[in-house]
Protein backbone atom coordinates (compact mmCIF):
# COMPACT_ATOMS: atom_id res chain seq x y z
CA UNK A 1 0.00 0.00 0.00
CA UNK A 2 1.21 3.50 -0.81
CA UNK A 3 1.77 5.43 2.40
CA UNK A 4 3.29 8.58 0.93
CA UNK A 5 1.10 10.69 -1.30
CA UNK A 6 2.03 13.81 -3.27
CA UNK A 7 -0.58 16.23 -4.63
CA UNK A 8 0.69 18.13 -7.68
CA UNK A 9 -0.77 20.51 -10.22
CA UNK A 10 -1.04 23.99 -11.65
CA UNK A 11 -1.41 26.86 -9.18
CA UNK A 12 -5.05 27.35 -8.12
CA UNK A 13 -6.45 23.97 -9.23
CA UNK A 14 -7.20 22.95 -5.64
CA UNK A 15 -4.19 20.93 -4.50
CA UNK A 16 -4.53 22.16 -0.92
CA UNK A 17 -8.28 21.53 -0.60
CA UNK A 18 -8.01 18.11 -2.30
CA UNK A 19 -5.09 17.06 -0.11
CA UNK A 20 -6.91 18.34 3.01
CA UNK A 21 -10.13 16.50 2.08
CA UNK A 22 -8.19 13.31 1.25
CA UNK A 23 -6.29 13.50 4.56
CA UNK A 24 -9.55 14.05 6.43
CA UNK A 25 -11.09 11.03 4.69
CA UNK A 26 -8.05 8.74 5.11
CA UNK A 27 -7.68 9.60 8.81
CA UNK A 28 -10.74 7.37 9.38
CA UNK A 29 -8.56 4.35 8.56
CA UNK A 30 -5.03 5.22 9.69
CA UNK A 31 -3.20 8.19 11.29
CA UNK A 32 -2.38 10.85 8.69
CA UNK A 33 0.33 13.53 8.63
CA UNK A 34 -0.39 16.30 6.15
CA UNK A 35 2.40 18.72 5.18
CA UNK A 36 2.14 21.80 3.02
CA UNK A 37 5.39 22.35 1.10
CA UNK A 38 4.07 25.38 -0.79
CA UNK A 39 5.71 28.54 0.55
CA UNK A 40 2.48 30.44 -0.12
CA UNK A 41 0.82 28.27 2.54
CA UNK A 42 -2.95 28.23 2.90
CA UNK A 43 -3.43 24.83 4.51
CA UNK A 44 -4.17 26.56 7.83
CA UNK A 45 -6.93 28.59 6.10
CA UNK A 46 -8.57 25.37 4.86
CA UNK A 47 -8.72 23.97 8.42
CA UNK A 48 -9.37 27.38 9.93
CA UNK A 49 -6.32 26.95 12.16
CA UNK A 50 -2.98 28.70 12.56
CA UNK A 51 -0.50 26.02 11.51
CA UNK A 52 3.26 26.13 11.96
CA UNK A 53 6.33 24.08 11.03
CA UNK A 54 5.57 21.58 13.81
CA UNK A 55 2.72 19.12 13.14
CA UNK A 56 -0.43 20.10 14.96
CA UNK A 57 -3.50 17.98 15.72
CA UNK A 58 -6.37 18.91 13.41
CA UNK A 59 -8.70 16.12 14.44
CA UNK A 60 -8.37 12.56 15.70
CA UNK A 61 -5.70 10.78 13.61
CA UNK A 62 -4.90 13.89 11.56
CA UNK A 63 -1.83 16.10 12.09
CA UNK A 64 -0.94 18.99 9.80
CA UNK A 65 1.99 21.38 9.37
CA UNK A 66 3.13 24.14 7.04
CA UNK A 67 6.80 23.36 6.38
CA UNK A 68 9.16 26.32 6.66
CA UNK A 69 11.61 25.79 3.79
CA UNK A 70 13.66 28.82 4.89
CA UNK A 71 14.40 27.00 8.13
CA UNK A 72 15.73 23.95 6.24
CA UNK A 73 17.73 26.14 3.90
CA UNK A 74 19.33 28.05 6.80
CA UNK A 75 19.98 24.87 8.79
CA UNK A 76 21.81 23.26 5.87
CA UNK A 77 23.80 26.41 5.04
CA UNK A 78 24.88 26.85 8.68
CA UNK A 79 26.10 23.23 8.85
CA UNK A 80 27.93 23.73 5.59
CA UNK A 81 29.53 26.97 6.76
CA UNK A 82 30.86 25.35 9.91
CA UNK A 83 32.31 22.47 7.85
CA UNK A 84 34.02 24.94 5.45
CA UNK A 85 35.26 26.99 8.43
CA UNK A 86 37.01 23.90 9.77
CA UNK A 87 38.85 23.41 6.46
CA UNK A 88 39.69 27.07 5.90
CA UNK A 89 40.10 28.15 9.52
CA UNK A 90 42.86 30.63 8.61
CA UNK A 91 40.30 32.78 6.77
CA UNK A 92 38.81 33.80 10.11
CA UNK A 93 42.03 35.76 10.73
CA UNK A 94 41.14 38.05 7.82
CA UNK A 95 37.46 38.14 8.80
CA UNK A 96 36.55 36.73 5.38
CA UNK A 97 34.02 34.11 6.47
CA UNK A 98 31.08 36.48 5.91
CA UNK A 99 31.54 35.93 2.17
CA UNK A 100 30.30 32.38 2.73
CA UNK A 101 26.83 33.83 3.30
CA UNK A 102 26.55 33.70 -0.50
CA UNK A 103 25.92 29.94 -0.17
CA UNK A 104 22.34 30.91 0.70
CA UNK A 105 21.89 32.11 -2.88
CA UNK A 106 23.34 28.99 -4.53
CA UNK A 107 21.29 27.78 -7.52
CA UNK A 108 18.65 25.12 -6.80
CA UNK A 109 18.90 25.69 -3.04
CA UNK A 110 15.06 25.75 -2.82
CA UNK A 111 14.80 22.21 -4.23
CA UNK A 112 17.50 21.15 -1.79
CA UNK A 113 15.50 22.60 1.12
CA UNK A 114 12.45 20.64 -0.12
CA UNK A 115 14.48 17.43 -0.31
CA UNK A 116 15.89 17.89 3.21
CA UNK A 117 12.46 18.68 4.66
CA UNK A 118 10.80 15.67 2.97
CA UNK A 119 13.66 13.40 4.05
CA UNK A 120 13.33 14.53 7.66
CA UNK A 121 9.58 13.87 7.56
CA UNK A 122 10.16 10.41 6.10
CA UNK A 123 12.83 9.52 8.63
CA UNK A 124 10.67 10.50 11.59
CA UNK A 125 7.38 9.10 10.28
CA UNK A 126 5.77 6.10 11.91
CA UNK A 127 3.42 3.81 10.00
CA UNK A 128 1.19 6.73 9.06
CA UNK A 129 -0.05 8.12 5.79
CA UNK A 130 2.26 11.00 4.83
CA UNK A 131 0.56 13.48 2.53
CA UNK A 132 2.40 16.33 0.81
CA UNK A 133 0.62 19.34 -0.64
CA UNK A 134 3.25 20.38 -3.20
CA UNK A 135 4.16 23.85 -4.51
CA UNK A 136 2.99 24.78 -8.05
CA UNK A 137 4.36 22.82 -11.00
CA UNK A 138 7.75 24.45 -11.67
CA UNK A 139 9.25 23.89 -8.22
CA UNK A 140 7.61 20.47 -7.81
CA UNK A 141 9.05 19.19 -11.08
CA UNK A 142 12.44 20.66 -10.20
CA UNK A 143 12.24 18.79 -6.88
CA UNK A 144 11.68 15.43 -8.60
CA UNK A 145 14.19 16.18 -11.35
CA UNK A 146 16.91 17.27 -8.95
CA UNK A 147 16.89 13.85 -7.23
CA UNK A 148 17.34 12.19 -10.62
CA UNK A 149 20.00 14.71 -11.73
CA UNK A 150 21.97 14.42 -8.47
CA UNK A 151 22.07 10.64 -8.80
CA UNK A 152 23.46 10.89 -12.35
CA UNK A 153 26.16 13.38 -11.27
CA UNK A 154 27.06 11.29 -8.23
CA UNK A 155 27.30 8.12 -10.31
CA UNK A 156 29.72 9.73 -12.79
CA UNK A 157 31.82 11.55 -10.16
CA UNK A 158 32.11 8.40 -8.03
CA UNK A 159 33.22 6.27 -10.96
CA UNK A 160 35.88 8.88 -11.87
CA UNK A 161 37.00 9.18 -8.25
CA UNK A 162 37.28 5.39 -7.93
CA UNK A 163 39.45 5.32 -11.04
CA UNK A 164 41.72 8.01 -9.52
CA UNK A 165 41.97 6.01 -6.30
CA UNK A 166 42.79 2.84 -8.22
CA UNK A 167 45.54 4.63 -10.22
CA UNK A 168 47.09 6.00 -7.01
CA UNK A 169 47.13 2.50 -5.53
CA UNK A 170 48.76 1.04 -8.66
CA UNK A 171 51.44 3.74 -8.55
CA UNK A 172 52.14 3.18 -4.87
CA UNK A 173 52.42 -0.55 -5.57
CA UNK A 174 55.04 0.07 -8.29
CA UNK A 175 56.95 2.86 -6.54
CA UNK A 176 56.87 1.63 -2.94
CA UNK A 177 56.47 -2.08 -3.57
CA UNK A 178 53.24 -2.23 -1.59
CA UNK A 179 49.74 -0.97 -2.10
CA UNK A 180 48.89 1.92 0.24
CA UNK A 181 45.17 2.33 0.78
CA UNK A 182 44.45 6.03 1.10
CA UNK A 183 41.31 7.41 2.70
CA UNK A 184 39.71 9.52 0.01
CA UNK A 185 37.64 12.13 1.86
CA UNK A 186 35.95 13.29 -1.34
CA UNK A 187 35.00 9.75 -2.42
CA UNK A 188 33.57 9.02 1.04
CA UNK A 189 31.49 12.18 0.96
CA UNK A 190 30.22 11.33 -2.54
CA UNK A 191 29.34 7.76 -1.50
CA UNK A 192 27.41 9.03 1.55
CA UNK A 193 25.49 11.44 -0.66
CA UNK A 194 24.77 8.69 -3.19
CA UNK A 195 23.37 6.50 -0.41
CA UNK A 196 21.18 9.40 0.74
CA UNK A 197 19.76 9.98 -2.76
CA UNK A 198 19.34 6.27 -3.51
CA UNK A 199 17.20 5.88 -0.37
CA UNK A 200 15.33 9.07 -1.20
CA UNK A 201 14.64 7.87 -4.74
CA UNK A 202 13.41 4.51 -3.44
CA UNK A 203 10.95 6.33 -1.21
CA UNK A 204 9.79 8.40 -4.18
CA UNK A 205 9.27 5.25 -6.24
CA UNK A 206 7.10 3.88 -3.42
CA UNK A 207 4.96 7.04 -3.34
CA UNK A 208 1.64 7.76 -5.00
CA UNK A 209 1.35 10.97 -7.01
CA UNK A 210 -2.01 12.61 -7.61
CA UNK A 211 -2.04 15.23 -10.33
CA UNK A 212 -4.90 17.69 -9.96
CA UNK A 213 -6.51 19.42 -12.91
CA UNK A 214 -9.69 21.44 -13.42
CA UNK A 215 -12.11 20.93 -16.29
CA UNK A 216 -10.34 23.61 -18.33
CA UNK A 217 -7.79 23.51 -21.12
CA UNK A 218 -4.86 25.24 -19.36
CA UNK A 219 -4.77 23.12 -16.21
CA UNK A 220 -5.34 19.98 -18.32
CA UNK A 221 -2.37 20.80 -20.58
CA UNK A 222 -0.17 21.51 -17.56
CA UNK A 223 -1.24 18.21 -15.96
CA UNK A 224 -0.22 16.42 -19.17
CA UNK A 225 3.18 18.11 -19.04
CA UNK A 226 3.61 17.01 -15.42
CA UNK A 227 2.76 13.43 -16.44
CA UNK A 228 5.33 13.55 -19.24
CA UNK A 229 8.01 14.82 -16.82
CA UNK A 230 7.18 12.14 -14.25
CA UNK A 231 7.35 9.41 -16.89
CA UNK A 232 10.81 10.62 -17.93
CA UNK A 233 11.88 10.24 -14.30
CA UNK A 234 10.40 6.72 -14.10
CA UNK A 235 7.81 7.87 -11.58
CA UNK A 236 4.80 5.96 -12.88
CA UNK A 237 2.60 5.62 -9.77
CA UNK A 238 0.44 8.60 -10.63
CA UNK A 239 -3.29 9.22 -11.14
CA UNK A 240 -5.15 12.20 -12.51
CA UNK A 241 -7.86 13.90 -10.47
CA UNK A 242 -10.30 16.43 -11.92
CA UNK A 243 -11.30 18.93 -9.28
CA UNK A 244 -14.21 21.42 -9.49
CA UNK A 245 -15.97 19.14 -11.97
CA UNK A 246 -19.76 19.44 -11.90
CA UNK A 247 -21.05 17.14 -14.62
CA UNK A 248 -18.41 14.43 -14.52
CA UNK A 249 -19.40 10.76 -14.21
CA UNK A 250 -15.87 9.40 -13.66
CA UNK A 251 -14.96 8.46 -10.05
CA UNK A 252 -11.76 10.47 -10.48
CA UNK A 253 -13.75 13.71 -10.36
CA UNK A 254 -14.32 15.83 -7.29
CA UNK A 255 -17.47 17.93 -7.62
CA UNK A 256 -17.64 21.66 -7.05
CA UNK A 257 -18.38 22.75 -3.49
CA UNK A 258 -19.20 26.18 -2.12
CA UNK A 259 -18.02 25.80 1.48
CA UNK A 260 -15.54 23.60 3.34
CA UNK A 261 -17.91 21.32 5.22
CA UNK A 262 -15.58 18.31 5.09
CA UNK A 263 -18.12 15.66 6.15
CA UNK A 264 -20.72 16.85 3.65
CA UNK A 265 -18.23 17.04 0.76
CA UNK A 266 -16.99 13.52 1.53
CA UNK A 267 -20.52 12.10 1.72
CA UNK A 268 -21.47 13.81 -1.57
CA UNK A 269 -18.34 12.46 -3.29
CA UNK A 270 -18.33 8.89 -2.00
CA UNK A 271 -17.31 7.46 -5.43
CA UNK A 272 -14.28 9.73 -5.58
CA UNK A 273 -13.05 8.95 -2.06
CA UNK A 274 -13.58 5.20 -2.51
CA UNK A 275 -11.60 5.35 -5.76
CA UNK A 276 -8.87 7.36 -3.97
CA UNK A 277 -8.60 4.76 -1.23
CA UNK A 278 -8.54 1.88 -3.73
CA UNK A 279 -5.83 3.57 -5.80
CA UNK A 280 -3.58 3.58 -2.74
CA UNK A 281 -3.64 -0.22 -2.65
CA UNK A 282 -0.47 -1.26 -4.42
Amino acid at each position, binding site marked *: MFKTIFFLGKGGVGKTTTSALSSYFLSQFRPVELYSLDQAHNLGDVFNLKLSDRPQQVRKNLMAAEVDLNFWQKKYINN*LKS*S*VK*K*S*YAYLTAYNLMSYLDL*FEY*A*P*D*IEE*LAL*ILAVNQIWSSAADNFIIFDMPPTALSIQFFK*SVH*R*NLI*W*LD*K*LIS*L*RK*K*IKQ*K*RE*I*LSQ*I*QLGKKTIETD*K*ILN*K*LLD*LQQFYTNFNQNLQKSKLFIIQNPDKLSHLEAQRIIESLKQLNLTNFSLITNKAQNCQSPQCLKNFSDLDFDRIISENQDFFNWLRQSLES
Partner: protein
Amino acid sequence: MSIWQKIKDFWKNFDQFNRQNYVEMQQQELAELETIFALLTIGNFIGLPNPPSHVALEIISALDKEFDILVNSVEKSLDSTGYLLGIFDID
Protein backbone atom coordinates in the same frame (compact mmCIF):
# COMPACT_ATOMS: atom_id res chain seq x y z
CA MET B 1 81.85 -10.21 -16.81
CA SER B 2 80.17 -13.39 -18.02
CA ILE B 3 77.60 -13.35 -20.78
CA TRP B 4 75.03 -14.54 -18.34
CA GLN B 5 75.75 -11.54 -16.09
CA LYS B 6 75.55 -9.21 -19.09
CA ILE B 7 72.14 -10.62 -20.04
CA LYS B 8 71.00 -10.21 -16.45
CA ASP B 9 72.20 -6.57 -16.36
CA PHE B 10 70.58 -5.86 -19.71
CA TRP B 11 67.32 -7.37 -18.53
CA LYS B 12 67.51 -5.38 -15.28
CA ASN B 13 68.02 -2.10 -17.18
CA PHE B 14 65.36 -2.99 -19.71
CA ASP B 15 62.91 -3.80 -16.93
CA GLN B 16 63.77 -0.61 -15.04
CA PHE B 17 63.38 1.48 -18.19
CA ASN B 18 59.97 -0.01 -18.94
CA ARG B 19 58.83 0.32 -15.36
CA GLN B 20 59.87 3.96 -15.36
CA ASN B 21 58.05 4.56 -18.64
CA TYR B 22 54.95 2.82 -17.34
CA VAL B 23 55.02 4.81 -14.09
CA GLU B 24 55.38 8.07 -16.02
CA MET B 25 52.43 7.18 -18.25
CA GLN B 26 50.35 6.20 -15.23
CA GLN B 27 51.30 9.45 -13.46
CA GLN B 28 50.29 11.46 -16.54
CA GLU B 29 47.00 9.61 -16.76
CA LEU B 30 46.36 10.13 -13.04
CA ALA B 31 47.10 13.84 -13.40
CA GLU B 32 44.65 14.08 -16.31
CA LEU B 33 41.96 12.19 -14.40
CA GLU B 34 42.45 14.56 -11.46
CA THR B 35 42.20 17.56 -13.80
CA ILE B 36 38.95 16.22 -15.28
CA PHE B 37 37.58 15.72 -11.76
CA ALA B 38 38.58 19.28 -10.82
CA LEU B 39 36.98 20.62 -14.02
CA LEU B 40 33.75 18.74 -13.32
CA THR B 41 33.51 19.86 -9.71
CA ILE B 42 34.84 23.43 -9.76
CA GLY B 43 34.99 24.14 -13.49
CA ASN B 44 32.22 26.71 -13.01
CA PHE B 45 35.02 29.20 -12.25
CA ILE B 46 35.90 29.08 -15.95
CA GLY B 47 32.33 28.87 -17.22
CA LEU B 48 31.74 25.11 -17.29
CA PRO B 49 28.45 23.76 -15.93
CA ASN B 50 28.71 23.03 -12.23
CA PRO B 51 27.32 20.00 -10.40
CA PRO B 52 23.97 20.35 -8.61
CA SER B 53 24.31 22.53 -5.50
CA HIS B 54 23.94 19.69 -3.02
CA VAL B 55 26.78 17.70 -4.61
CA ALA B 56 29.04 20.75 -5.04
CA LEU B 57 28.42 22.13 -1.55
CA GLU B 58 28.91 18.79 0.21
CA ILE B 59 32.41 18.31 -1.20
CA ILE B 60 33.57 21.94 -1.37
CA SER B 61 35.44 21.76 1.94
CA ALA B 62 37.57 18.86 0.65
CA LEU B 63 38.45 20.36 -2.73
CA ASP B 64 41.64 22.26 -1.79
CA LYS B 65 43.81 19.99 -3.96
CA GLU B 66 41.43 20.42 -6.92
CA PHE B 67 41.88 24.22 -6.73
CA ASP B 68 45.67 23.73 -7.01
CA ILE B 69 45.20 21.34 -9.92
CA LEU B 70 43.10 23.87 -11.81
CA VAL B 71 45.61 26.67 -11.19
CA ASN B 72 48.44 24.45 -12.47
CA SER B 73 46.34 23.50 -15.50
CA VAL B 74 46.18 27.16 -16.46
CA GLU B 75 50.00 27.19 -16.76
CA LYS B 76 49.92 24.01 -18.86
CA SER B 77 47.24 25.43 -21.13
CA LEU B 78 49.56 28.32 -22.07
CA ASP B 79 51.85 25.79 -23.78
CA SER B 80 49.59 22.86 -24.48
CA THR B 81 51.60 21.61 -27.52
CA GLY B 82 54.82 21.58 -25.49
CA TYR B 83 53.03 19.74 -22.70
CA LEU B 84 51.72 17.08 -25.11
CA LEU B 85 55.14 16.63 -26.74
CA GLY B 86 56.67 16.33 -23.27
CA ILE B 87 54.35 13.45 -22.42
CA PHE B 88 55.64 11.48 -25.41
CA ASP B 89 59.29 12.49 -24.80
CA ILE B 90 59.59 14.39 -28.07
CA ASP B 91 62.25 17.13 -27.96
